[in-house]
């Protein structure tokens, strides 16, 4: 079954990339729904506010709000594993650890609410953004069945079809993490472990307690 769809998918990929490059981004913009547009606005606003907030504590608080929007966005794009990670790590861990770090450092009271813009840095970021935005015209639309990441019968469809038969678990994300690329996950776990040791070394302590 997957083999039969292979030539169709490859043809679709080629035609979609050429067509979208010619017709620019206008049809893509028209397809954005209200929930997507509002979530994007929320995320961009919180990200800008985090970057420009003068007070570090305010920046941490707004960063918590940013993660709320990102989790909703991940959820809308049907990536519940990523959304769950975002929820658990940001709401539970990152904010608390950042606040603890703030409590151990000195916080300066600022008069102004926002940072002044550093124009060379802003120009560099703008150039990077423009360079990335050029490539957006070639990216297939979200949820497009012709997208290479979805239509490829040898990768995505293979994992979705074969996960349960080969591993016995239903969550493909977990199967990929723990079985198909288990050595990478082992490296990630060791990185987390090394992060704890690095914190001990940086803070010059030998015990966590």
């Amino acid at each position, binding site marked *: 079954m997957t083999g039969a769809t292979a030539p169709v998918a490859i043809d679709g990929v080629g035609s979609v990339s050429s067509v979208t490059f010619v017709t620019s981004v206008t049809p893509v913009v028209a397809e954005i729904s209200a929930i997507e547009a509002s979530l994007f606005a*929320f995320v961009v606003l919180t990200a800008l506010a985090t970057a420009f907030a003068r007070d570090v504590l305010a920046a941490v608080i707004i960063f*918590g709000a940013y993660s709320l929007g990102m989790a909703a966005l991940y959820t809308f794009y049907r990536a519940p594993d990523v959304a769950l990670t975002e929820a658990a790590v940001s*709401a539970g861990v990152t904010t608390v650890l950042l606040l603890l770090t703030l409590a151990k450092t000195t916080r300066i009271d600022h008069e102004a609410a926002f940072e002044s813009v550093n124009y060379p840095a802003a120009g560099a970021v703008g150039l990077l953004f423009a360079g990335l935005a050029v490539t957006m015209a070639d990216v297939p639309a979200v949820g497009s069945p012709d997208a290479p990441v979805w239509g490829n019968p040898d990768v995505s469809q293979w994992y979705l079809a074969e996960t349960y038969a080969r591993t016995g678990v239903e969550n493909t994300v977990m199967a990929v993490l723990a079985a198909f690329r288990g050595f990478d996950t082992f490296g990630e776990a060791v990185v987390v472990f090394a992060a704890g040791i690095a914190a001990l070394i940086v803070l010059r302590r030998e015990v966590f307690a």
Partner: protein
Amino acid sequence: MSVVDATLAAGYTVGDFLLVVAAGFVILAIGMLYRAVKGPTMQDRVLAVNVLGTNTVVILAILGAALGEPTFLDIALVYALLNFLMAIAISKFTVERGGVL
């Protein structure tokens, strides 16, 4: 012909309606964001983030219903349980700086 009948006849489903409702909640969140960013005192920001968290729980639940994915409620549950932690962490920090935190 009522509004509901008209929308149903036009081919819109309950899921579409719920997505519009979720978008409305996100717009409310953007309004609340003003208080989180501007908020003259930290208490304003704490309250704003708490309301934003509750709002997100509602948005996630609506998204789960609209997209037909009951597992999205798991994420909403995580936020419902951990939003409280974020609120008390920030509020303890602001009440007595250098205290427990």
